[in-house]
């Protein structure tokens, strides 16, 4: 259990542009901290700086209470799952797993026990004697994961550790990693591209974009109240639909993408900016219109449909934007169909057009089983 603190940290390769700039964040002891961001935004670089593999160009890194900028990696007492595994080609799976333990001079017998245990957990039991090159991609990744897990260091860094695993195994691993992290009180910094991992595993998420922090917060808060359009479209899949909008004071309506008019409740009018703004709505908040509820319904022409099994996503044009709606269940929709879609003003997120700042949050969409009627 150790705190990791980054103060004004930045990094550039070869003195060129910063790939990471002015990162300020404190990761609390025992926290599960998830790092997400588009490919190439600097996630791995940040992990590698924390691990001491990459020099820190500017700023201060503290591990525990100590400044660690110049501490060598082996003194930092952490473990890491590398994005490209970094397995030792000359060692068997078991030796790869126990490599770190051996370094710590743990007894051979105990090493073996631990290796067998973690291999069991990761479904590697039958591969313990193989060399890495005789393994499938996913198996290799699991070996890398096993190596980090057995080491039981107070800090653990994982760089997309589950990317090559199938959904089932991944679900299993998610809960296992979370369990171990909780039980041992490990401070975990976890990079992922998987929305489910990001939403379910982390105590907090940090969203990075071009080396800059976009937002840090609880997963659900980020989902509900994204700080800016970037976060809004990055978290959630399919992403939040965005469009330019203007308030028409004459009709008290919001004109979205020059195509859609939505009446604004009286008490909200004051909060809207007079100039144009960016509005966003999550695909799942574009509901199918029911015969009972014909308010705020508009019809759209479907341009693409994807049935994911338990839900259906279809796209349509709104002004110049391509929007998507996600309905649960399997809907037999064809391209070209005109669909009635209902959207509520409450579900909108509104961002300042210039700064991108969130002006209006969606209302809390939580379904409280106890407090209110159960309803979809």
């Amino acid at each position, binding site marked *: 259990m150790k705190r990791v603190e980054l103060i004004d940290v930045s990094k550039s390769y070869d003195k060129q542009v910063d790939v990471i700039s002015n990162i300020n964040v404190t990761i609390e002891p025992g926290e599960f901290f998830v790092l997400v961001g588009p490919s190439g935004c600097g996630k791995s670089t940040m992990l590698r700086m924390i691990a001491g593999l990459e020099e820190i160009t500017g700023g201060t890194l503290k591990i525990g209470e100590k400044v660690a900028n110049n501490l060598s990696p082996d003194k930092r007492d952490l473990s890491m799952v590398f994005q490209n595994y970094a397995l030792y080609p000359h060692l068997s799976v078991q030796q790869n797993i126990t490599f770190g333990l051996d*370094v710590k001079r743990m007894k051979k017998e105990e090493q073996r026990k631990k290796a067998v245990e973690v291999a069991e957990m990761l479904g590697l039991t039958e591969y313990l004697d193989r060399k890495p090159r005789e393994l499938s991609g996913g198996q290799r990744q699991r070996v890398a994961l096993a190596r980090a897990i057995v080491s039981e260091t107070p800090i653990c860094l994982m760089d997309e550790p589950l990317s090559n695993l199938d959904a089932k195994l991944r679900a299993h691993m998610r809960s296992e990693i979370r369990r171990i992290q909780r039980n041992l009180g490990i401070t975990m910094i976890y990079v992922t591209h998987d929305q489910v991992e990001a939403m379910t595993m982390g105590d907090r998420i940090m969203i990075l974009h071009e080396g800059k922090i976009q937002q840090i917060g609880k997963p659900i808060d980020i989902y509900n109240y994204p700080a800016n359009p970037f976060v809004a479209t990055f978290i959630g899949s399919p992403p939040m639909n965005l469009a330019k909008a203007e308030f028409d004071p004459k009709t008290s309506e919001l004109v979205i993408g020059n195509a859609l008019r939505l009446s604004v409740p009286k008490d909200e009018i004051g909060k809207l900016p007079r100039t144009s703004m960016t509005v966003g709505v999550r695909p799942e908040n574009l509901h199918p219109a029911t015969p009972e509820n014909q308010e705020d319904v508009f019809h759209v022409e479907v341009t693409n449909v994807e049935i994911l099994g338990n839900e259906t996503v279809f796209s349509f044009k709104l002004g110049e934007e391509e929007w998507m709606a996600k309905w649960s269940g399997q809907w037999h929709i064809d391209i070209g169909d005109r669909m009635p879609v209902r959207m509520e003003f409450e579900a909108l997120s509104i961002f300042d057009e210039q700064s991108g700042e969130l002006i209006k949050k969606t209302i809390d969409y939580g379904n409280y089983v106890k407090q209110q009627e159960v309803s979809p």
Partner: protein
Amino acid sequence: MGLASKIWIYFLLIVTSAFVFFPVLYAFMISFMTGPEIIQGKFFPESISFENYTKVFSRLPLLNYLLNSFIVSVSVMLGQLVVCSLAAYAFVFFKFKGRDFIFFLFISTMMIPWEATMIPNVFTIRKLDWFNTYQGLTLPFFALAFGTFLLRQHFLTIPKELHEASQIAGLSRFRFFWRVVLPVSKTSLVTLGAYGFLTTWNMYLWPLLITTNKSVRTVQIGLKQLQSQEIATEWGVVMAGVIVVIIPTLLLLFIGQKQLQKGLSQGALK
């Protein structure tokens, strides 16, 4: 691979390797010939006669020489492996001021003709009172720029992820060297080992200059003892000597080859 190209490759393999190996075969044949047969320039001996071999063994304490050669070669081989791998490791995995300069200094030692340094070295060995000792025969060769260079080139190809992973695992510098760098560089180590062994085995002038009696003499001196200057050389005996001297090294190459093969199939990085 198609059958046609396979046949083509086998053809090339057989023809070229026959060419390469021919001189050895030739020497082998001659070693079984009698004087007149040799003079007549035959290729196959009329009858296999071991006379030349018995002569070689009776003339020289050849087994003793072979044993000395073996001890000296193995010591130099091991010494070189240790000293060179340490140095190469420092050149690849440490960053320090003047690294390139020191490396070049090392390389420059290869450019100094050995013949030019030999005489002062003989004096040094005498001052150290190392005449007729194994250390006199071996120690000067432990540091080898060539070996350092070879290993450095190989160490440079080790993916840096392995170094990183080891650092994270808390491996000290030395243990990374020992546990990771050396095992994954097996091929180069075997190559260098073979090189060190063979060159030492084949050394002539140095062992001659710093030994004055049979006690630690090596087999190449024996080979020279078979040739005479003013009196007619018995080619058959000389070739028999050549064969006796090269058989251990060829054997070693063969075994080394197997080792190398094994190392290679396991070692392929990434």
